[in-house]
């Protein structure tokens, strides 16, 4: 059962990742990305981490992907459908990807990870909260600063200023 679920999730995740990158339309690509993110959330469930899975769906699928979709919508149609890869670069990229996968895969398969299994019960998600408040609390403060900074910054950047007029091509 678990194996079947894992297989299915794997196919969905990897397949939609490829789709996200390769589909001609950017909108479909975004939907493909949502598939990947959802697939990963599925994996999280499979790993007995429902809290993270929920967070993943909430933040990623719910907000990030939607944000991306909106941005995609903002962009002109012809840009969305333009497929402009350089074939040489594409093959080089595929080669790099394959070597990468083979190399790192070989390292991993060769290592002791091969046979790690566990019989212990999953971590209670309350421990996560404990972690946050006792050990990681300074990081949490920084996290807040990151969000504050990125939001103000993104706002400043994205704000339309009237001086900007017309495209520049230099």
């Amino acid at each position, binding site marked *: 059962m678990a194996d079947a679920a894992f297989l299915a999730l794997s196919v969905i995740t990897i397949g939609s990742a490829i789709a996200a990158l390769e589909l001609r339309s950017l909108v479909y690509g975004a939907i493909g990305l949502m598939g990947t993110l959802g697939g990963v959330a599925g994996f999280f469930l499979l790993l007995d981490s429902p809290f993270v899975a929920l967070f993943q769906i909430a933040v990623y699928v719910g907000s990030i992907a939607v944000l991306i979709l909106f941005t995609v919508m903002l962009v002109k149609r012809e840009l969305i459908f333009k497929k402009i890869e350089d074939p040489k670069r594409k093959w080089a990229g595929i080669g790099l990807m394959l070597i990468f996968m083979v190399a*790192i895969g070989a*390292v*991993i398969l*060769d*290592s*002791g*990870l091969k046979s790690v299994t566990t019989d212990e019960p999953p971590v209670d998600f309350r421990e996560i909260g404990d972690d946050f408040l*006792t*050990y*990681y*609390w*300074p*990081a949490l*403060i*920084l*996290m807040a*600063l*990151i969000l*504050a*900074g*990125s939001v*103000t*910054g*993104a706002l*400043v*950047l994205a704000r339309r*200023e009237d*001086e*900007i007029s017309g495209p*520049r091509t*230099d």
Partner: protein
Amino acid sequence: MIELTSTPMILVAILGTIGVILPLINIAKNEGGSNAFYATIAFGALIASIGVVAFKILTDSVLPSALFSEDVLVDDTFGGFFAIALLIVAIFTTVGSYNYMKNKSQPAVYYSLILLSTIGMVLIAYSTDLVMLFVAWELMSIPTYILVGYNKKDPSSNEAALKYFLFGAFASAIIIYGISIAYGLTGSTNISDVIHGFAVLDADMVPLALLSIGLFIAGFGFKMGLVPFHMWLPDAYEGAPPTIAALLAAGTKKAGFAATIRVIVLGTVALNMDWTFALGVIAVMTMTIGNIAAIMQKNLARIFAYSSIGHAGYILIGISIAPFSDIGIQASLFHIFNHAVMKGAAFIAVAGIIIALGTSSLDKIKGLGRRMPITALGLVISLLALAGVPPLNGFWSKLMLFGAALDAGSVVPWAPWLAIAGVLNSALSLAYYAWIIRKMYFEGETEKRVSEPKSVIAVMIFSIIFIVGIGVFPDPIIQFAGTAAPTMSLSASP
């Protein structure tokens, strides 16, 4: 649990508060408020912070260079050392920005982002936990993505920001991937636990540990501008507002080194030591490519960008031989400090030139010595210091770096080659530094003087005093770097 009165937390309190409040004031004032107002506040906050760090260090209320703690942060001299260097850079940037940001929109957010980024940098140096480190890393990076693209009307600023962002995000992902493996192998994110975990690793797990180190090198190396992760750097530095380039080159880059020392070096002393050979190779590649590429450049900012790549190579020498020489880390720290000041001054000078002349193209700065004498003098001093000409501070740290490499030669035979490569590169680098001097002083003899931005002059004067002062009496900083440098052995960890 780390106390609220420890240095990093006080810094977070001061800078974080001001950093968050500045945009709020801006909104409260209904987008009013002058550049000078925000700059003063930010400057005050930074001065207060540096005062706190200095006070803490001088009163000996910080730990000696512990580098390990059971907590996510540790208040030690290593962090203090970086905090001082990075805060100086932040002050340079803030002061230099005062003139640069005149008549530009949204100064409040600009200063706020500088402050936030500064916190990130400083906290990297204080981190003893991978998660903390990662979060601080992001706090440092994300504001700078925005700052690089802050000139919204300038296409090259935007282009630079995009490239920087793509690389940065990629690198972050790589880092977190690396953290995931390290965590997976040792079951902890605390650096000291990771080290101990690595030390007792089964033989068949060691390749994985090395894989995680490789990922760290790539991730941190992007910020440090190590070859081959350097490609974004010249473009970003050139396109960015020059003050921000100063922050990047002198600040974030140094934070990258802090992370490297904390994580890579210390974290892997536990593994076999041969792996630092990889760092050595990267060091040689980095300095060679950086210096060679700098030679034919036409733009000051770009030259300095490449030069800072070259300097990353020098610093990496000290790190790569850290396990074999007592003074390796010390030398690196010293050079980090010096480079922060020199490169900061150089970029601020570029900012001054851009403010006054509107360009940083090498052909347009002919006769700068006559047009902007103080800026030019500051630039010359920092150039000579970068080239390692005695008796300026850059000389001493290079001296220590090469010395450390030779010193390590008795343990690892490849180490002296680093010194030789470094020395030859250092000589080669003189070619383009002297070229700039030539343009400034020996051409354009009929140029007339123009008014120089005051804030830039202030930075120049400070840096001249600092560079020459440390050049004549390097001992204080060498000592400071010595106390900040961690001891390279497992027994030092708790």
